[in-house]
């Protein structure tokens, strides 16, 4: 299915989701990019996963970007059956307590990736069964991947 057909199916079910247009002069892949409000995410993901014509059963990766004024969580979905791709972007305006509902109940593969985002970027995932630091030691302060992160000096006491 081409990007426009996918977009049509999705906007049919979720009117308020719209695609992110391709800006002239900016490099971008040929996938369809969607901007999704945080609270609609679980419902949309379940629809994308179990709806037969879409069948996005493979979550390639989840990552996060710190745009200095807002956070952004990116989901890269692939349908192994129809071979089409989709990128979901969730913007989190409030910088104090960024929070996104978890998708581990739809794709189990997101389990550690969400924990890594929580560990390195500080975005909490509501409903994650085991949300604690995965890469850094448990008593580490701060989230390194944030642009405003000041590395604490190594302490060898």
């Amino acid at each position, binding site marked *: 299915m081409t990007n426009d057909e996918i977009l049509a199916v999705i906007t049919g079910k979720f009117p308020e989701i719209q695609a992110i247009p391709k*800006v002239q*002069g*900016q*490099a*971008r*892949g040929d*996938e369809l990019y969607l901007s999704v409000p945080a609270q609609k995410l679980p419902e949309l993901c379940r629809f994308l*996963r*179990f709806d037969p014509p879409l*069948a996005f*059963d*493979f*979550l*390639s*990766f989840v*990552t996060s*970007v*710190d745009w200095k004024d807002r956070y952004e969580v*990116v989901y*890269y979905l692939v349908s*192994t*059956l129809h*071979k089409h791709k989709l990128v979901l972007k969730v913007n989190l305006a409030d910088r104090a307590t960024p929070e996104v509902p978890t998708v*581990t*109940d739809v*794709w*189990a*593969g*997101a*389990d*550690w*990736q969400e924990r*890594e985002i929580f560990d*390195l970027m500080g975005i909490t995932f509501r409903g994650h*069964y*085991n949300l604690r*630091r*995965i*890469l*850094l*030691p448990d008593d580490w302060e701060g989230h*390194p*991947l944030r642009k405003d992160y000041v590395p604490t000096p190594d302490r060898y006491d």
Partner: protein
Amino acid sequence: MSQTTTPASAADVFPQAPPEKGMFISLGPQHPSTHGVLRVAITVDGETVTSAQPDIGYLHRATEKLAEKRTYPQIIVLTDRLDYLAAMTNNWSYCLAVEKMLAVPIPERAEYLRIIVGELQRIASHCVFLGTYGIDIGAYTPFLVAFGRERERILDLFEELCGARLTYNYIRIGGVMADTPAGWEKKVREFVKEMWGHIQEYDTLLTYNPIFMDRTQNIGLMTPEMAVAWGITGPNLRATGFRADVRKDDPYSLYPQLKFDIPVGKQGDCWERYQVRVSEMRESLKMIEQCLDRIQPGEWMAKLPKVYRVPAGEGYGHLEAPRGDLGFYIISDGSPSPYRMHIRAPSFINLQVLQQLLKGWKVADVVAILGSVDIVLGEVDR
């Protein structure tokens, strides 16, 4: 041509919190069969494993943070150290992502060289797996044969080509570092001819060894639904009978012109994960032979200005690394260094399935299952 995947039943696939009952065993981080610094916290009830919680982060070098401070060519050096057993494919995947954003045409000779070198790297990486998995199960000879003899030949070829044996950064943005030295292709052809016999040797030595089969068959079973739900890629996914390979599904470079097929298992047990990797070596040999027949002398580096700027925007390039679907998601703001780079590391995602895969098996099988998933900690911890 992959089959449909039925929606995974929630119960057995999704992770649950570990139960409290049972004796606690900590396997690692210093342990002979965890292939690097990985600790697996296992709770055991009698002889069977009730829960397993891999604990990673011992080799975390914050590659993604470092990348934000380096220019695009400098990052190639970082990617070597991700999956330190397959540095060639790491470089290639990163260069693919950047070239997709730069939209620069790559000369044909460079593409053929990249495929030859990539497939040689896949054989070398599978040789390491074959050797260490033999030791996990208790057979010491395959290690010396596969790791000692075959991989050394490949490393010698790489050393002749780019001067390094482990961190090559031979593949550059826009092509390859340098042309092949004289007689290099002849040496590769000789190696490929000999390698056919050696793979036959592995079959008799280990694959069809009754005790090896007894230790690995029907152990650590994985269904296609569970594999896709957990995001597993590479030989582990194909062993479950699910035909998925980036070289076929999302072709890059000149793979569409090559004739090769994808070895697939049936029930996703340890033996099939091992068997798929050995047959993949044969496919790689076929590809190298085809590339060697087609390669002609010519341009090996695209015309790129000394200091080039990647246009603002984002791009995701990925390829079939020996351990699975390795991808680089790069966001650039037009400056010489990327604004943000995320690495889709196959070992990191393949490793989380252990929480589910180890449940219910005996303690003696933990080592067999962990070895068969074939993870590299450099890629897991990034």
